[in-house]
């Protein structure tokens, strides 16, 4: 091949790259290894991590939950036709990905109770950032009132990205019931943001947040837990303009925090401001039903500096995985998982109350805050030695723990955990 190009060596391909910047020595990296050795290196690393169910019973959530995942969904999502495809730019040969995304959009819209949903964003935090961007674009205001009950990592991400365009972010504190105390903000705002249930598990009053938003001429953005919506009223039905959330619970393994899935649903009012990819139905030259990415003019590759968002690569595979998982659950299974999470968390809370601990009093879904008589970190550490991830620390409250339980937790596990906590306090 080099000869065809009139070249003598691979070096010649780079002859036009200025010598002074060319790397004159080999990269200071280890030499290559067979896949067996690389796999074994990673096995070694993997053994130095505590894995859910293998090493640890996980009573920690905070945006990442240990659910039972079906093998069928895993096998289907792992098909190489999905895994090794690119963005479906050529719909004639991408109907698999496109139809799966269309089904995903439908599922998210139905769960959220919104008119439409997009084909995925990076994660829950990114989805919130994009929702706020949309609200800013739609209202012309750059002020945002966010509940302090929203996942603190999401708020921090919002603050990071908001800094670029001088977002004015005001955080409304939560009260002792772990619910938002909105106060009576006045003036104009782009968005009011509330968690549902919020980071502390509390089922916030979305209707109240809607009123606050109305008063400010703001869009209501709800950060929802999609699993909760098997039991709780859909935010769309409660007046949310935009509903976002973390889709990890919908069939994605814990994965040390990623890749996860940013869910984004909205009212058709904002259709042309929606970030990310949208898949729509159409027909082909023979009149047969087919799917295609649509409303492309919103996107960065067409609108460039005036795009609604810069997102390009997103989380398609995770969206497909979620669509498969939700279809595996089905209408009934989805409700049942939701209910079982609720049952497990409440059973856990009741066990802890029995041993004298105080649990947050507001209605909660599958996550709640418990107050210990001693520093939580010490308890977490000792429980860890006994095979339990005892929740998450609560920022600024050293004696509190944020605990969760899901449909994957057995009564035996919850009992054992509560008994061990009892011994610690």
């Amino acid at each position, binding site marked *: *091949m080099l000869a*065809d190009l009139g070249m003598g060596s691979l070096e010649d391909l780079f002859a036009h790259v200025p010598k002074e910047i060319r790397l004159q020595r080999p*990269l200071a990296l280890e030499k290559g290894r067979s896949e067996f050795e690389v796999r074994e290196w990673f096995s070694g690393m993997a053994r130095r991590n505590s894995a859910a169910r293998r090493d640890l019973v996980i009573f920690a959530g905070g945006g*990442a939950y240990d659910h039972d995942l079906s093998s069928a969904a895993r096998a289907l999502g792992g098909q190489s036709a999905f895994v090794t495809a690119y963005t479906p730019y050529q719909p004639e040969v*991408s109907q698999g990905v496109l139809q799966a995304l269309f089904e995903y959009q439908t599922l998210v819209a139905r769960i959220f109770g919104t008119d439409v949903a997009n084909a995925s964003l990076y994660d829950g935090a990114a989805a919130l950032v994009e929702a706020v961007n949309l609200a800013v674009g739609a209202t012309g205001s750059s002020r945002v009132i966010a509940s302090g009950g929203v996942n603190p990592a999401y708020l921090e991400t919002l603050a990071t990205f908001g800094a670029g365009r001088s977002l004015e972010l005001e955080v409304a504190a939560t009260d002792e019931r772990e619910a938002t105390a909105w106060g009576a903000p006045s003036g104009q705002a782009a968005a009011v943001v509330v968690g549902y249930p919020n980071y502390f598990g509390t089922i916030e009053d979305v209707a109240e947040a809607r009123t606050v938003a109305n008063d400010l001429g703001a869009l209501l953005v709800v950060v929802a837990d999609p699993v909760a919506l098997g039991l709780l009223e859909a935010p769309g039905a409660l007046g949310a303009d935009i509903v976002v959330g973390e889709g990890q619970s919908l069939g994605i393994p814990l994965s040390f925090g990623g890749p996860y899935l940013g869910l984004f649903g909205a009212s058709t009012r904002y259709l042309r401001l929606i970030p990310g990819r949208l898949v729509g139905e159409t027909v082909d030259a023979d009149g047969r039903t087919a799917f295609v990415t649509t409303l492309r003019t919103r996107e960065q590759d067409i609108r460039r*500096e005036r795009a609604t968002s810069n997102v390009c690569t*997103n989380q398609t595979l*995770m969206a497909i995985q979620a669509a498969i998982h939700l279809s595996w659950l089905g209408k009934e299974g989805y409700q049942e998982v939701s209910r079982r999470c609720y049952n497990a968390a409440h059973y856990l809370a009741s066990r802890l109350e029995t041993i004298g601990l105080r649990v947050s009093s507001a209605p909660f879904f599958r996550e709640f805050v418990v107050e210990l008589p001693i520093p939580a970190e010490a308890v*977490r550490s000792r429980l860890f030695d006994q095979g339990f991830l005892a929740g998450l620390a609560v920022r600024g409250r050293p004696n509190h723990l944020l605990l969760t339980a899901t449909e994957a937790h057995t009564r035996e596990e919850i009992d054992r955990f509560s008994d061990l906590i009892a011994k610690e306090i």
Partner: protein
Amino acid sequence: MPVTGDHAGGRASSAPLVGRESEPTIFELSVPGRLAYYARSTGVPEWPASEIGAHLRREPAELPEVSERDLVAHFTRLAARNYSVDVGSYPLGSCTMKYNPKFADEVAEMEGISRVHPGTPERAIQGWLEILSSLESYICTITGMAAATLQPPAGAAGELTGLLLMKAYHRSKKRDPRKVLIPDSAHGTNPASVTLAGFEAVTVPSGPDGLVSVEALRSLIDGDIAGIMLTNPNTLGLFETKIVEILELVHGVDGLAYYDGANLNAIVGVVRPGDMGFDIVHSNLHKTFATPHGGGGPGAGPVAVAEKLVRFLPGPLVRRETGGDLRWHYPEESIGRVHGFYGNAVVLARALAFMRYLGGEGLKRMSELAVLNANWLRWRIQDSYTIPYGGVCMHEFVASASSIKKSSGVRALDIAKSLLEEGFHAPTVYFPLVVEEALMFEPTETESPQTLAGLADSLIRLAVIASENPELLAERPLRTPVRRLDEARAARKPVLTEDQRTAAPSAS
């Protein structure tokens, strides 16, 4: 004669192995009461829902009701309707669709990798921290940078992160320059990111050689320049040979230089962005380092920076304690986190697996072969297509169907669609915008000479057909799962969900 009426509410779950039947949606396959789900028996007692009375959902979400058998058939058949790298060549320019070694899938599935909660204490995630730390060091070595955040989940997120770092840098110097220079051939994410970062995108025109015009650039330089965003090789596949001069101009006004690493596949081990003078570099791990694209994601877009920017990086980073243990570390002047957790961790692990597999020499060879393949493919088709820019190209090149269009009316799009019919994926079309009827090819290093020859033969054949029977190409593709779509119809009255679909008048 018996009728199916009594058993309506679903569709047969069989479809031809091949052929062009469309697949029903999962909702069309749904039959009330059918279920794949099978719950673990936990013994956890039922808790009264009364506690959440007012919040109870009134109408259950209409999820499909299918058996596991029908679920599996549905998604297996959908997969059969999708082209992918594992099926064949995917020379999509700017996307680096290379073969992704399978062993990385097994790495990604290891229990101690995939089933780790991000809130696990540091002592119980030393393996994960080692992976992240090792990857950071590989990235820095490859790019010639001092430190990197692994959080950005894609290239565009990396761009925005990098631009916020740029902003933080200037603010730390009590400056607030507003403009970021971008070549006219830049990828759309660049200007979009610039806007989102609160800067103003200023376009730098390319010269007739496809490279940034240094003269034009010089005339745009002033004290309001926050920096420049470049990819090198640029999106025309050409190496910006004046890169040192360009970056000196920008640095001259204390601007920073951002390297869009989407094209890193051309230069690993050959030349490093840091050595060219860049201050900020994102890498698209899903391109250069072979983490599969997943139909459009997930990816990972780590951002590496020069020493002077390290203190602004998003936290947490992984750093080694004196004792040898790894810990989360939060830089003092951090711009703050840019992901809910630590980025697309499993994608990061895959990329590291790839890097360790190839090693330093293998990574260099990867880039050399990527460049060789692109040049050879270009050479093979150069008599049939316009090649707007001469000289050696890097890992990709842009051809143009403009002369074909002039003589026959056949457009770049027709060539692309006809290539699907030939069994290849299409190149990127109509990008970059600076080339008319652009066909942008990136064969990658994993395609064999035979595959490249097959691709070239197809392209040459199509050029011949264009001149002899142009109307044939407008019809293609004919044998793909669907034919050309009515995209205007999709946009005119968008049908984005099954509900809108059933509400709308039927598609056919």
